[in-house]
Each structure stands twice: as structure tokens, then as C-alpha cells.
């Protein structure tokens, strides 16, 4: 049974800004199906005494004190940027959205 449709893969690809070909849509739909099936198997094993986990370490409340530390210089910060203007990161035209 295919739980993941080609349309869903196309939607995900759009959200992830990935350009997939028609062939790839089918290819990834099958692969994602397998992945989701595997995760579902884990979910079957999880019993009520096993709480859901999002972290490998049994830790909570790891905080830092509110202290200012040295930042980078703008030169350092921008050194890896593909394009720079006025000490800012220059990015291509943003389409379709307004913020």
C-alpha cells in the first residue's frame, strides 16, 4: 500500500525548495513510504511506559547565564557570504512572499 502520493512528494519538494523531476517524484514516494513504514514499526513497539523522546540524553534545563560574549566582526561574519552589500548579506530577489 502506498501511503505517500506523488502529490505529497511534490508538495514537500516545493516546501523544501527542491526541483524534482517527474521520475524522481515516483522514486521518492516509494522510498518515503518505506521510511514511514519503518518508523511505524518502532511506534508499534513503544509501550506506555516508554515516553516519546526527542533527545538521546536524559537531560532537562540546560541553560546559559544571560551574559554577553564576543561576537564576530562583520568582516568575519560576512567572509563566507556569496554576496555582500553595506555590511549585509546580499540575497537574490525574494518572490511570492512579503514579510
Amino acid at each position: 500500500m502506498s501511503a505517500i502520493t506523488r502529490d505529497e512528494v511534490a508538495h514537500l519538494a516545493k516546501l523544501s525548495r527542491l526541483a524534482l523531476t517527474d521520475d524522481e517524484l515516483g522514486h521518492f514516494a516509494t522510498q518515503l513510504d518505506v521510511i514511514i513504514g519503518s518508523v511505524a514499526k518502532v511506534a508499534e513497539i513503544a509501550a506506555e511506559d516508554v515516553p516519546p523522546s526527542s533527545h538521546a540524553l536524559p537531560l532537562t534545563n540546560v541553560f546559559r547565564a544571560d551574559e554577553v560574549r564576543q561576537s564576530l566582526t562583520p568582516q568575519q561574519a560576512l567572509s563566507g557570504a556569496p554576496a555582500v552589500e553595506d555590511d549585509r548579506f546580499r540575497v537574490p530577489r525574494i518572490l511570492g512572499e512579503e514579510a
Partner: protein
Amino acid sequence: MSVIAFDKALERFEPVLGLETHVELGTASKMFCGCATGFGAEPNTQVCPTCLAFPGSLPVANEAAIEATIRIGLALNCSIAEWCRFARKNYFYPDMPKNYQISQYDEPLCFDGYLDVEVGGQTYRVEIERVHLEEDTGKSTHVGGATGRIHGADYSIVDYNRAGIPLVEIVTKPITGTGAMAPEVARAYGVELREIMRSLGVSDVRMDQGSMRFDVNVSLNEPGAPWGTRTETKNVNSFRSVERSVRGEIERQAFLLTSGEKIIQETRHFHEDTGTTTSGRSKEEAQDYRYFPDPDLVPIAPDPTWVATLRDTLPELPSVKRKRLQSEWSVSDHDMESMYNAGAIDLVEATIAAGAPAADARKWWMGELARRANESGTALADLPITPGDVARVSELVASGSLNDKLARAALEGILAGEGSADEVIAKRGLQIADEGELLAIIDQVLADNTDAAEKVRSGKVAAVGALVGAVMKASRGKADAGRAREIILEKLS
């Protein structure tokens, strides 16, 4: 754009509001790294590998931001989560270099609270859905095109100083039953929220600098019908705009609905100049953000003892404080509301603390100073005068060294930056005439105004006003009018 007049719209529809408020916390460092948070720094001077999302960097949560958020939750009568997590909100937009924003999704730090606001003597309870913690985004500038907006721009440039500053989002539950008061209730909620943030000292809540901003949701339905489709007006940056955006959206939606059209669920942009909104983008579904718990951050489980301590050490909340002050100052509901709306309560309180009687403190701030603030279009609190200055002027009036007119001149001098009350008085020679000077002036006035003097002598006491006026004029405002009247009546009896 076609609209239906507000009153007509309210005859047919009931509005449902929802408000989302973003408050930038006033921590010294960012939410997940040690970069400074000052406003107005040179571009990209408050950035580091973590807030620029360099590979290998890891976020660590700022304890002061967690504490401030819990205190906000407690002040808004919320429950505090025993355990919650940060989540990644995934989207592609260059305002966050990570391609996600660290936020909270289904496990907010605080939830299920309320805030009571008063409008026109009536109390409206605004229920709070959640208070959660996230990080602010960077600031984009759009280059090219005519408008400086994204549409038509050739490219954008981004400053990440703001990216990663702790940002609290306060979300109301749908607010119903406000009817025609909806715009005022929305505004009053915003104002009260700002008061609370101030009393907690968690943010500078400078709306002009974006450290407090609102998203305003509005829908309309006919009485008894299910709620309508809502629109969300983003980044509304003043209380006046909150009020106007609610009003404008009610008028716009009412027109569409009465014309048989549908409301599209979308974000809209508010325009200060016209008070109207225009369409933005269709609202994403929450699932499009593919939220998931951030594996770089461990869960937060606030120690109940810590939360109890924070609860016990909350400051007196603004609404409670106002009730206390109103009773201490013996002022009417109306006068208290006027002071609240003018932002005068803290100023009056500080002036009283500096030694002025309550009535005098209120008189100066709500009279002469309110007038001056109004004239110059500034907020009362932004006038260049301190409560200490006002208390000193009030003291000098009480002791008889200044009359009302001289006191106003002294305030004018202080506002003009001429120095403290005493310095202005010395520089301008604002000293009430002494008894000897006063007697000399009065004798001259009586000699020059024999007709009026004769009238008073013959029992027409009302004519004394003209003589007192002449004394005030001759002394160039420096006479004590009350004392002058006494002396004149004595001399003419």
C-alpha cells in the same frame, strides 16, 4: 476599496477577534547565544556562529529569557508547563539563516490564562491561549523597485543583529461578545499588556523599534451562525493602528459578506496612511512548517519551587496598582481613566513620591504639561522634565514663592532645556513680588485707576477684579494675586 460603514456592519455581524503579540525581551544576550541585543547597532556586529547557523554551532537556552517568559505567563494568570520543548519551524526565507526558526509548537511554556481589560467602565475578559518563547528574525532591506517593498525589488540585503533575540509570543483565544467595542477592546488589551510588560521589567516595549508588535485576527459572523473565516493583519505597530485595523477589517469584510462574496483566509498588511489593509499571502497550513522538536535543545522542566518563587515575587500588577492609587489619591473613575490614557499615572506617582501633594501633581501633569505634550505631539513621559522638577515647582507654589503664572513660566523654561526648576527661576528672575514691591505697585495702580477704586470703595466689590488685573499686569505677572486682592480691599475699606 469598498466598505460598509462600521455602525451598519455591526448591525448585521458580530466580530470575533484574536490577537497575537510579539514582545522582544530585554535580555542582555540573545536567546541561544551570547551576542548582544542592543537596538541600532551597526549591521552584522551582533552575530556569531550560532545565530548565523554556521555548521557545528549549537544553541543553549538563555535562563533569563525562560524566567521572563514564566513571569509573563504568571502575570497573565497562565498555567506553567511542567515539561516542554522547543520546536523547529521550517521555512525558506532569508530572515533566518538556519532555514528554520526555533519556536515552540504544541508545548508552550505557559498556557490557559486571561487578562481583564476595562473599556468605558465595562470589564472584558480576554482569555490567553498560550505564551511561548521563540527567537526573533533578521532584518531584510529590499533594494530596487519603486516602493522599497519586496514586490519589484531586485534583491534584498540582510542584517542578522536581530536574529536570535528572545521573542515572546502571547496568543489570545478567540475574543467574542465585544460587538461595536471590538476596536477599543483590542486597543485596551494591547495597552494593558504593555503596562504589564513594563511592570515586570522584561522588555522596553518600544513599539517604534518593533520590540512590541501585534498581529490582528478578525472574522465576522451573523448572530447565531458559526464563526466566519478570519484574516490576519500582520505587524501592526501602534495601539492606534490596532484599533483602526480592527475597524477597517470589519468594514471590509462586512462589505464582502453582504455582497455575497467569501472571505479568503490570508495575511493582510496594514497601511498607516489610509487605515486599510491589503492582501498579503494565503496563510500557510501549520503542517507546511513541518514543526518537530529541536534535537539540539533539551526539554525545559521548570522546577515548581522556582515557579512558586517567581509567582511570589511578581510585582504589583498595573490594574491592582491603579485601584490602590485611585483610592489613595481620591480621584474619580473618570479622572483615573484620563490619567491612564494619558500615560500619566507613573509620572503623577513619582511626583507625589518627590514630595508634591496628590492634587497638585495631578493638576500639573494633566493640565499645563498635558497641554504642552499635546502641542508638541509627544507622549507625556517623553517631555524633557522629571517628576522631581514638577514636585519642586509645586513646592514653590505652595510656599508662596511662585504664583501660577510664574510656575508655568518655570515649567516652560525646564521644557526648553534651561535647567532645573531653581536654575530656570534664577535665570528668568521668576520671583514673586515681595510685600514692599507689591504695596508700591498697588499704590500706583490705585492712583491710576481712580474710577475703579471709587466703585470698590462704594461697595461694588466685584470691581476689585480689574484692579487685581492691573496689579498683575504692572508686576509682569510676579504678584501674588490673592494677596494683592486682600491688600486692595483693606486699603479701600
